[in-house]
């Protein structure tokens, strides 16, 4: 893998990774080469919650890439995010099978999705059942209570 890209992913600089991948994709297309990082790009879009870009990446991916199991697996996660099927997102993340690098990215997707969901719950609900919270964030009850503390509302 491209050394720069590797470093960006390792340090969590997903926005820069997206920029680099987009540039590489156009380069590969212009020079009739192969773009090898479709899965990385899709995963980064999902981490950054850029669902529109993820959707378009899926639409423009060539047939060979779409047939790839990991790419399809990532897209299943993305589709669930798009439809706001909260529990299904975590289920799809758990069910994902791929290389170590890909699994690390998928864990990052789940983590960022969980964080955004927690923020949303804090914003939208004045009271919500613990069971429901566990379902939406895929955490066990004590973890839910722990993550709530930093978000104490006025």
């Amino acid at each position, binding site marked *: 893998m491209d050394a720069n890209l590797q470093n960006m992913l390792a340090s969590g600089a997903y926005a820069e990774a997206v920029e680099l991948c987009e540039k590489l994709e*156009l380069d590969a297309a*212009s020079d009739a080469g192969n773009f090898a990082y479709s899965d990385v790009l899709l995963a980064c879009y999902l981490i950054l919650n850029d669902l*529109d*870009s993820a959707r378009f990446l899926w639409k423009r991916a060539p047939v060979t890439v779409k047939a790839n199991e990991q790419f399809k697996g990532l897209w299943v996660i993305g589709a669930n995010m798009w439809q*706001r099927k909260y529990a299904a997102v975590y289920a799809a993340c758990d069910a994902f099978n791929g290389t170590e690098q890909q699994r690390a990215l998928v864990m990052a997707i789940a983590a960022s999705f969980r964080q955004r969901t927690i923020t*949303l719950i804090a914003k*939208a*609900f004045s*009271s919500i059942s613990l069971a429901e919270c566990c379902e939406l964030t895929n955490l066990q009850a004590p973890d839910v209570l722990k993550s709530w503390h930093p978000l104490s509302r006025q």
Partner: protein
Amino acid sequence: MDKLIGAIHQYSGTSKEADLLLLKKLLEEPANKESLHKMGNLDDAFGLINPASHTVAYVILLDYLGVRSQAEQLKFAQYARMLVAECNPKHLLLVDRHYFSVCHKFASLFSTTAQALSGIRLLHAALVRFQSGFNPVDPGKLTPIHADLLQLCILARTYKFAVNNVLNTEISSVVDYENSEAFLRFFYYAGIVYTGLRNFPKAIANFRMVFSVPANAISAIALEAYKKYLLCSLIESGQVSGTKVAPNMVMRALRPLSAVYQEYVSVYSSHDTDNVHKYAMAHVEAFKKDRNFGLVKQSIAALYRHNVQRQTRTYVTLPLKDIADVVKLPGASAARSLIVRMVEDGQVRASINARDGMVSFSDDAEAYDTMASAQRLAGRIHDAAALDRALKAVDRDLLLDRRYIQRTQLSDAKGAAASINYVDDDDDMARAIALSTANV
């Protein structure tokens, strides 16, 4: 044939504008054009010239090159790449129509979804190259290449690239080109890009441009833009407005041609989702034929949101069940999911009490006293001032335009009652009269 090559070398060598224009005329002559079209001649010609020193000839020859067979297409693409990489931008301006035609031909070669991505870089480079020939460089000048580039971006689904590289500059002028179709296409494609990114205010503005430009006849582009404009307006605000700026003649022609959509707008204004559903399904074929059914579905989803927002204007607290009933959602949990979604998208400020099944709506808590709002305000004032300056500049140019002065002087001579009261500045008037009488 050899004579032509000789002429190319001779005239290009001097790089004086007069010589280049002579060369251009020579190459455009029908007899020469035909002899160039004869098989094999063009290939030979390309072998003898290069894009850097013979830009004018290269562009014209490339315009003449046929692209019927696969082999010809490959050659065309290859020559086009060399042209963009090495041409002299200043000379491009002399053969701009040929250059636009070359770019258009290039775009049409790559206009299948699978191939579009490969053409984007080159076409973008072609555009940048053309723009660099102007002095001063004006990135806000609209050219036909913009439309072709947007078309490729849409086909390749690289909407982000389109926004970051083509649509990020405000269009401030238009290149001199008599075919208006390219410009209409630009705004139509821009609207489509923004619709894809669900930035409906910008989509609406671009679609409106297509049918609002002064026109003596309507075009299919204007009609499609109008239909999408109606649907995007419904999605964004639930109503349609702002068509007053369009020329009367265009609106009169557009209305009967888009009757299905007009009726949909009036059904929509009843805010009744059942009726809207019924109408949409009754006319699904018509919507699908125009490939607008996706937008129709989005507008129905938006209607639920608009209805919820109307509730927030009347009530401070409401049970989820009541919201579901009024807005005609399947149940309290559907209402809850919708409101959570709306809170996420920033369309409503609400707080759900899951235990009691109640929602409380709150007003906009924005106090506009943060650094961020101050900066936003400053930015808007800055933009408004820049717009004002641009308008004043256009106004000044118009006042000093010969044709304008002649027309107004003529109407004055005919004893028109109104004095020329749109000129505030006496200096301007004096200068204008001096210019027009000085036989410039």
